[in-house]
């Protein structure tokens, strides 16, 4: 068994860790780097609670061996807030009580971030598709969809130029 040094840029900061073959990206974040936002739910890629951004794209980090993504950029829920100031998506989840127990929330938020990065004005169907891999066992989907819709509107209002750009 080979232990390898894996370098990642996590939330914009360079990190390195010693990974065993069985260390997943999720394990690297939680157990090596102490970032507990992404959750281990099913370990099957089915619940979405471990969703993070890998080179800007949402992935279920439980299915990614860490050694295969050496050199990649990773975005997690911990990287969204600016100090005490929550991101627009986080604030909308908080204001709309879209969290309930909170276990699915980091994955939901990262899926929402990935959606809004590509689509500034998503329809409800597009929101449903974006979070179709994120399971909320509190079944609080309505406030979650509503929070994502709200965050999209807030983001468009804050940056009309950016929204137009994203729609092109």
């Amino acid at each position, binding site marked *: 068994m080979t232990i390898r040094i894996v370098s990642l840029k996590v939330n914009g900061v360079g990190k390195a860790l010693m990974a065993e073959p069985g260390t997943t990206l999720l394990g690297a974040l939680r157990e090596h780097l102490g970032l507990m936002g992404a959750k281990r739910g099913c370990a099957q890629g089915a619940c979405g609670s471990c969703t993070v951004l890998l080179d800007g*794209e949402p992935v279920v980090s439980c299915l990614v061996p860490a050694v*295969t993504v050496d050199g990649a950029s990773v975005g997690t829920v911990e990287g969204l807030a600016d100090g005490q100031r929550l991101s627009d998506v986080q604030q909308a989840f908080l204001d709309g009580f879209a969290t309930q127990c909170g276990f699915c929330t980091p994955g939901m938020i990262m899926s929402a971030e990935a959606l809004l990065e590509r689509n500034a004005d998503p329809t409800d169907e597009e929101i449903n598709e974006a979070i179709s891999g994120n399971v909320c066992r509190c079944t609080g989907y309505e406030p979650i969809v509503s929070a994502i819709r709200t965050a999209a509107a807030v983001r468009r209002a804050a940056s009309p130029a950016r929204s137009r750009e994203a729609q092109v």
Partner: protein
Amino acid sequence: MLTEVHVPDGTAAVVGLMATGARVLAGGTSLMPSLNDHASPETELISLRRAGLGGIRVDGGVVRLGAAATLSRIERDARLAVLRPVVRSIASVPVRTLATAGGNLFARRPHGDLTVALVALDARVTLADSGGTHELPVEDLLAGTAPPALVTEIVFGLPAAGSFRYLKASRRRFNSASLVTVAATVTEVDGVVSAARVALGGVGPGVVRAVAVERALIGSPLDVPAVRRAAEAGLGEISPADDAYASAWYRARVFPVHLRRALLGH
């Protein structure tokens, strides 16, 4: 339990490692769930992430999908609009970022909807082994009789406008396995079907090439009576099974409905 994960550069290195008994890891969306179980057998993997197989080329109407081209990349490629409904019917967004075209060829029932489409598109695969490379129809690869080799590329011609049809029936709108998947390429001349290639998913141990359906369609206008006759013929070549999504009885019951919706749009 994972004992080693190789991340080689280039296909020659992958092929060399395959000879040692290590298993190929493409997107990992089928393989990793079983390996995340601590009771899994000792396994050595060869990741395709740096093997240079993630590209997509379209040249003169011929599409070449690298075996490690991800489903999200296919979904966003404007040249592959014909496959967009297929890809969007598969799994969830964060799974599609990882899942690959090549991996889909090996997905087990009731998954593998892209493969259903590829059979309907008469796609071929390029295989690499220690002796070099060779091509094989996807259908022959699925038959499982070819010796083990690395799929490096999937090749198919873009269908004529309006000739490709696809419909996947599932329990939810998104991220749900197939109850019945229908993919077909139908050519009509003067209002009569002159050629048809129909593949089905979710209703057999693997992808079903529905030759009886094709025979029933060819030579008739594509209308309700012809599709009904084709569905009756198709019932003889499907062998659905019970699973967590639906019973075999239900799949057989709704197959004619979904065949009609796929071919006629209503």
